[in-house]
């Protein structure tokens, strides 16, 4: 199964729903209320949230059509979604100079930070960048072990301390070692934290500060990892993490299930943060660049182009 099939598989249910409701339409100059309601509900069911869904509905309602069939309607839906997503699709760019380019990876518990780090590391090493991983999650049991295994898998060195140790000191050592060896990229793992736990958020801003001690420009990227199954709370997560840690970009994981990740559309509208990539599986190669057209078409239920 190709990743696009899997992605489309994820969106298929929504698409089917829209399909059920709009197939049979042949020609209408404007859409009737029932059809618009159905479209809006289908969008809500994809986690776009009531606000963004309403806006897309209005955008479609305002248009006049010569002739409309199911495929035509899907295409229009995809166009509207693509319009919102295109400005935020930006791949990760390794530009930090002097080296290392520091990437801090943050998110709530269980969103898939460590796995994403493994995949990003692999992706960068394939482009001939040298990568060092720093095990900043000293809280969760066996989190360090997990990152070390990923390090072995992708043949990247891992700098780690003791479980229960101070994450700030490990990331400091990470920057130091990366600077001394002149390695291209340092990727820093952190413990998962819920954004409403103030003390944990304070710890995160400390980690961020410490990263900048040896290299003022660091961290060059602060990536927030979002779980595709998360609903509207993802918007809260972005807001609070952005305030505390200065998020510069997003990666959405677990898009290989039925989750539609529609909240990305809402997030793109509201925050305009770059979306770097999406995760579509547990293997090292299951990280994909964020392709707005593919995602928009998948949400609308159109086959990959």
């Amino acid at each position: 199964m190709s990743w696009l099939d899997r992605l489309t598989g994820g969106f298929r249910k929504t698409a089917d729903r829209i399909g059920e409701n709009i197939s049979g339409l042949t020609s209408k100059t404007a859409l009737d209320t029932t059809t618009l309601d159905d479209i809006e509900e289908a969008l809500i069911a994809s986690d776009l949230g009531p606000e963004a869904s309403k806006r897309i509905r209005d955008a479609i309602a305002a248009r006049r059509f010569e002739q409309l069939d199911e495929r035509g309607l899907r295409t229009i839906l995809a166009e509207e979604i693509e319009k919102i997503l295109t400005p935020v699709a930006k791949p990760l760019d390794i530009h930090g100079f002097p080296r290392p380019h520091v990437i801090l990876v943050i998110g709530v518990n269980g969103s898939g930070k460590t796995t994403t780090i493994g995949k990003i590391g692999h992706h960068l090493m394939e482009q001939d960048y040298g990568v060092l991983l720093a095990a900043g999650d000293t809280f969760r049991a066996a989190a360090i072990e997990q990152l070390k295994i990923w390090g072995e898998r992708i043949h990247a060195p891992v700098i780690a301390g003791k479980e229960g140790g101070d994450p700030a000191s490990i990331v400091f050592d990470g920057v130091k070692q990366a600077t001394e060896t002149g390695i291209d990229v340092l990727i820093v793992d952190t413990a998962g934290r819920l954004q409403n736990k103030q003390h944990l958020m304070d710890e995160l801003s400390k980690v961020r500060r410490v990263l900048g001690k040896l290299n003022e420009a660091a961290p060059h990227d602060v990536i927030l990892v979002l779980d595709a199954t998360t609903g509207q709370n993802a918007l809260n997560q972005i807001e609070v993490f952005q305030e505390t840690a200065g998020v510069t970009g997003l990666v959405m994981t677990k898009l290989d299930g039925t989750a539609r990740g529609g909240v990305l559309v809402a997030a793109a509208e509201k925050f305009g943060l770059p979306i770097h990539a999406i995760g579509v599986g547990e293997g090292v190669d299951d990280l994909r660049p964020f392709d707005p057209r593919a995602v928009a078409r998948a949400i609308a239920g159109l086959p990959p182009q």
Partner: protein
Amino acid sequence: MFDSLSDRLSGVFDKLRGRGALSETEVRAAMREVRVALLEADVALPVAREFVEEVTERAVGEEVVRSVTPGQMVVKIVNDALVELLGSTNAELDLNTSPPAVVMMVGLQGSGKTTTTAKLAKRLKEKDRKKVMMASLDVARPAAQEQLAVLGRQAGVDTLPIVAGQSPTDIAKRALESARLQGYDVLMLDTAGRLHVDQQLMDEMNAIAAASKPAETLLVVDSLTGQDAVNVAKGFGAEVELSGVILTRMDGDARGGAALSMRKVTGKPIKFAGTGEGLDAIEPFHPDRVAGRILGMGDVVSLVEKAAETVKMEDAERLAKKMEKGKFDLDDLALQIKQMQAMGGVGALAKMMPGMKGMKAAGDVDEKALTRLEAMMSSMTPGERAKPKIINAKRKIRIAKGSGTTVQDVNKLLKMHQQMESAMKKLKKMGGFGKLAAMFGGGKGLPGGDGMPDLGGALPGGLPGLGGPGAPGGLPPGFDKFSKK
């Protein structure tokens, strides 16, 4: 959790309340707002739709039209429907089978299975006095088995020794065998995270279930889950016979849509809720109390239970005796503050207090204020604490230096104590604690509530520790509590 949904709903209800007559159009408009509020809270679309339809039908019926206070009636209907949606009673684990009773945990990746397994095992061991063994069948995620082993050591629960290279089914068989031989009561199986669309892994899960015949199969669901919760629940439910749901990360700020949808979609009760990172942070799920919290009615029962768990009885009695005499020195205040902190701090308490829901200040209370107060009081001599009157300017400077605060802070503390003391004296005149409870139930007239901007709503939370058991009696009946104070 639930805060924002509760805010949205009380906003809708405020418009209805107190109206003499309601037209059908008005009710329908309000219900549309309820629907958006539910959807924003990530309640699954089919569940939200059905809920609103049902409630609207009941609300535009004769019941409401004839009622003297139609607004209140609508609120009541929504409340009842919400309790129904969540299920009415708490469901316990059913482990009545020939030991070892197998508890299998299933769910998506990252939903919190491993942590929850350890929390539940610890609870079964400590609260229910069971002999528990845990085994991780997760061979997919790196270091997952090590994680459970580490958690087992932290929780004081035995884990099955790890043998590398075994398949999940083989581990399950080995775990069952060794639990049987060593006389364990409960065997907890932590399985790998899997997507409900991954047929291969679903088959594996079925094979594990066939090999271990679990007494409980619990679906672990993240409270932050959005609309996909329905698909997940259906997907897992179609493959294995689920016996219940555990919601994790209830301490997050999600609006609880998953909690509202789960029961409806799976038809199974939510048995537990994970409420924090510590291994003790798991609680039985009480649907009625949660419904109350969503509607801003507070959760007095949980508050009293929590007080009973954390407050030492002797301490409370001693303090009560002293207070009845109208005496209240700084030692007593220090004790109270300690109790409040043991109960999870001001914010946690405020959320459970009826009538405090709408108080914006309650959420913004500086938790550090309590720590500062404690520091100041421990910088005093025993003499000063027993007789605060002897604290003169010189002593104030010493106390401020010793506690890293300022003289103004010390003054505030003393003023607060004075207010509380005079409140105690008034109370004595008024006739004791019964009345006090009534005062707190009303959420108004909090002694010393003004004049202490640093503390906000800190004081009212302190008192349930003492007068707590009396508080529910003082609750105004019914739905007056929806109004924002």
